[in-house]
């Protein structure tokens, strides 16, 4: 009996502890704008950026965590740890980085780090409480990487909000992203230009309630 009461309280404390350290992951393919969104969130609510964003693919090659971000909307408050992850890809060719004026040594090093980053990002899926899947809304959403990420989150019952990014670009097609993943809410934003961020934050509250 005492054992049962003890395990009940430990379980209760575990839930409490978990809620206090909610991890919000940002996942997606390379160059979808994950770090740009992470920076926008931390800039809005902490006044500082957390990651380096650049047009070169695989700029984020390690997991970056920013703790205790509190966002406020309509009298409500939400605190979480934000986890920016490396882009998930199925292929990495160092020669692709040469186009961005990296020398051969830098390109090889970047490719090596990028492969490790992909593995880390996949391993971290198990640690997430909620996930923002950031997709480039100008690209075909039916890529296998997108399907694999979302399939893995579904298999783990992790709540998901799909962020169709880069809506400021002419080729953006939010409806196509919505049609690809109808089981999850999709919100169109431009993290770089700050478009539709208020609606995004409202959806974040719904995701993490």
């Amino acid at each position, binding site marked *: 009996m005492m054992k049962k009461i003890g395990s009940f309280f430990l379980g209760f404390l575990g839930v409490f502890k978990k809620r206090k350290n909610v991890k919000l992951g940002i996942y997606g393919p390379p160059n979808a704008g994950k770090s740009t969104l992470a920076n926008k969130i931390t800039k809005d609510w902490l006044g500082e950026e957390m990651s380096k964003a650049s047009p070169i693919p695989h700029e984020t090659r390690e997991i970056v965590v920013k703790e205790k971000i509190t966002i406020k909307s309509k009298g409500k408050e939400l605190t979480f740890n934000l986890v920016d992850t490396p882009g998930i890809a*199925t292929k990495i060719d160092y020669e692709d980085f040469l186009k961005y004026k990296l020398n051969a040594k830098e390109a090889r090093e970047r490719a090596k780090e990028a492969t490790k980053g*992909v593995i880390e990002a996949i391993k971290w899926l198990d640690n997430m409480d909620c996930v923002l899947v950031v997709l480039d809304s100008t690209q075909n959403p039916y890529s296998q990487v997108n399907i694999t990420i979302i399939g893995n989150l579904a298999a783990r019952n992790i709540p998901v909000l799909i962020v169709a990014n880069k809506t400021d670009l002419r080729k953006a097609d939010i409806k196509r992203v919505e049609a690809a993943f109808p089981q999850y809410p999709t919100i169109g934003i431009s993290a770089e230009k700050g478009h539709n961020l208020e609606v995004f934050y409202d959806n974040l509250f719904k995701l993490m309630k």
Partner: protein
Amino acid sequence: MLTLQYIPYHEFAPLTLDDKLKRVLKSVKLDKIIIIEGRLDAVEESELIKRTMQQIDKKFKGIEIASIDYDFRSLDLLDKVKKNIAHFLLNRKPGLTIVGPATVVKEIRKDPTKIELMTLDKKNR
């Protein structure tokens, strides 16, 4: 020369996850494009990506992969049940998975019920 290798469901499904990944990557690293009857599940796919990343080197640049489901959405309930029973009795799994080496396959386009596979010109490999 382009080599396509077909792996039937009854040959692939009984393998352990480790053996499935070894089988896929062994063929892909020999520049073969493999077509697997049935879909890899999401966890198998993420393990395949992890294993691929571990093996990337000067020669092996990774994979292109796409899975496709038969679209049962347009069928009514009775037809869905019939299809599922047929697949069960024939020991088949609906869907296909295509995996190829990134040095041979440029892109696999999915949209969403058809797959187009584009290969690289030999001079660009």
